[in-house]
């Protein structure tokens, strides 16, 4: 579909949010609490923060929440009754203010969740979600989207991409059918394109490495000593994985009260020591270096090989969230130059 250019005034964006809410849609937008920015439901645009490079928490929860019910069960006298989570209750959702890199992140998630077996929970949530992205006018030292074939104004993955242009109004690029539908239902808020030069308003994100060189190198680096060297200071928490927009590893757990309960899927991290522990006590990834290697290679070797997609979008969240300054792009540069 051809991208259609429109203009939306800042005030109109607020009215659009009000209309979406009036239609019963959940609008998730960046909200700031201290220095941390989350995607949370908003009622009016005033609640939305614009003061962020990338949000602390990625928008992946829109389609892959930190805890998600798979099924409910009940142990009764006549045996066990269970039913899968009906996905019809998932709300129509609009994610406003995600970055172009974030939108690309759903490619990685989709590749994983649809690898042969199609994951209904994820797909049904995603199908009900519309993404209104906002291009990046600035970046910081952790950003490296341009190194993984992204860009601060990339339209891929968003349904509508807004770019703040002169005077604070937004250039609105209507990218997908979903975007078009939304733009039509709120057509009074979209005006004719002013012809602004989008590129002029985008951040300049330097390219740190060439991903096409990196991937083949990563594929041959399993035995490399870099993993131990890089990961000595890693303390094995899951902060990087939990803020990552493409990390999809999960755990499945049963939670019960009395005779009733539910089976839940919740986020997990390959960085945790017990992630791969066998019941026998044997652990294939006994040490942190093996776990760090798994994290990097999963994104830059295994996913490209098996799913034809690089599992990283260069948002830099992992490095910002890391309590011990494990800087991913720096390590990738090392690897690419090794």
């Amino acid at each position, binding site marked *: 579909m051809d991208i259609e250019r429109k203009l939306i005034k800042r005030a109109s964006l607020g009215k659009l949010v009000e209309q979406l809410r009036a239609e019963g849609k959940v609008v998730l937008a960046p909200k700031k*609490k201290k220095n941390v920015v*989350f995607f949370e439901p908003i009622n009016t645009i005033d609640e939305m923060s614009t003061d962020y490079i990338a949000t602390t928490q990625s928008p992946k929860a829109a389609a892959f929440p*930190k805890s998600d019910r798979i099924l409910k069960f009940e142990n009764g006298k006549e045996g066990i009754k269970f039913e899968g989570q009906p996905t019809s209750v998932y709300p129509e959702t609009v994610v406003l203010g995600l970055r172009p890199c974030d939108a690309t992140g759903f490619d990685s998630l989709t590749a994983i969740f649809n690898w042969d077996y199609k994951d209904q929970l994820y797909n049904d949530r995603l199908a009900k979600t519309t993404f209104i992205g906002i291009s990046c006018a600035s970046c910081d030292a952790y950003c490296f989207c341009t190194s993984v074939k992204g860009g601060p104004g990339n339209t891929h993955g968003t349904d509508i991409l807004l770019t703040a242009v002169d005077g604070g109004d937004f250039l609105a690029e209507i990218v997908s059918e979903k975007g078009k539908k939304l733009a039509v239902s709120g057509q009074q808020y979209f005006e004719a394109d002013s012809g602004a030069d989008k590129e002029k308003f985008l951040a300049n994100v330097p390219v740190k490495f060439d991903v096409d060189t990196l991937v083949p190198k990563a594929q041959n680096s399993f035995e490399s000593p870099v993993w131990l060297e890089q990961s*000595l200071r890693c303390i094995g928490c*899951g902060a990087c994985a939990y803020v990552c927009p493409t990390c999809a590893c999960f755990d499945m757990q049963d939670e019960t009260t009395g005779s009733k309960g539910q089976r839940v899927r919740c986020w997990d991290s390959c960085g945790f020591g017990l992630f791969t522990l066998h019941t026998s006590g044997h652990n294939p990834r006994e040490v942190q270096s093996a776990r760090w290697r798994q994290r990097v290679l999963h994104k830059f070797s295994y996913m490209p090989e098996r799913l034809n997609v690089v599992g990283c979008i260069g948002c830099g969240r992992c490095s910002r969230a890391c309590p011990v300054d494990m800087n991913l792009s720096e390590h990738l540069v090392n690897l690419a130059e090794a």
Partner: protein
Amino acid sequence: MDDLRKKAKDLLESQAVNVIIGYGEGTSGAVRAIFPRKAEETDKLIYDDRCTQNLAVYLMKHEIKHMEKKGIVATIPAMRSILQVASEYQLKEDELVILGIGPDGKLVDIPGFKAMEDYLATQDFGIQEDDKAILRKIDAMSMEERWSFWKDELSPCFKCYACRAACPMCYCTRCFVEVNTPQWIPISANEIGNFEWHLLRAMHLAGRCINCGECGRACPLEIPIHLLTYKMTEDVQTDFGVTAGLKADMPSVLSTYKLEDKETFIR
């Protein structure tokens, strides 16, 4: 800083240690832990105001534990962690060389645990004023306000366990949240599960926390969880007169008792 580098270099050259756990330059003005294992790498060691991470956490890390003799750049919180962990029989004195750093940022000569105890006895290490102010603010709240405060603070927690990973005292190979027969604490990060996790983690640090504040600093969501253990160190001090991390052979507060322990609530 030159003193530090020189001492580290000497230690590695004389093979008195196999590794130095210290601070180096990180990215974008950040500081990170570095692990020089060759004398020439000691030039990368730094020490300044930005060096706040409690490096004692690495003494418990599998890969580093197995490097046998280690030197560690230890600020006062790190020294206290070392003594505390040693009192729990997790560290041997002869495997460690301390490169002590005083409050003025200068190298202090700490030849052993005894010297460390003596040095710490001369130091002042209360809870920092800003944290103290928040503690008093919470104390002054009504019970309902405190409940709302913590509910609000803990609700974003997604259980990445950075607080646990950053803590030198959280060295269990299997934490109570990972004990699953039965499963006590919910794995999923839900409201009450987050309460249970943080309160019980704090309890497991009762009489052991040395107020380095790493847990709060490590939290990617800026949840002030360190306040829980800070409050508890105050309580342990009030009730039992004990301060953690001052002696290498101090019995644990909660596995000992006194006949005269005074409470007012048992009927």
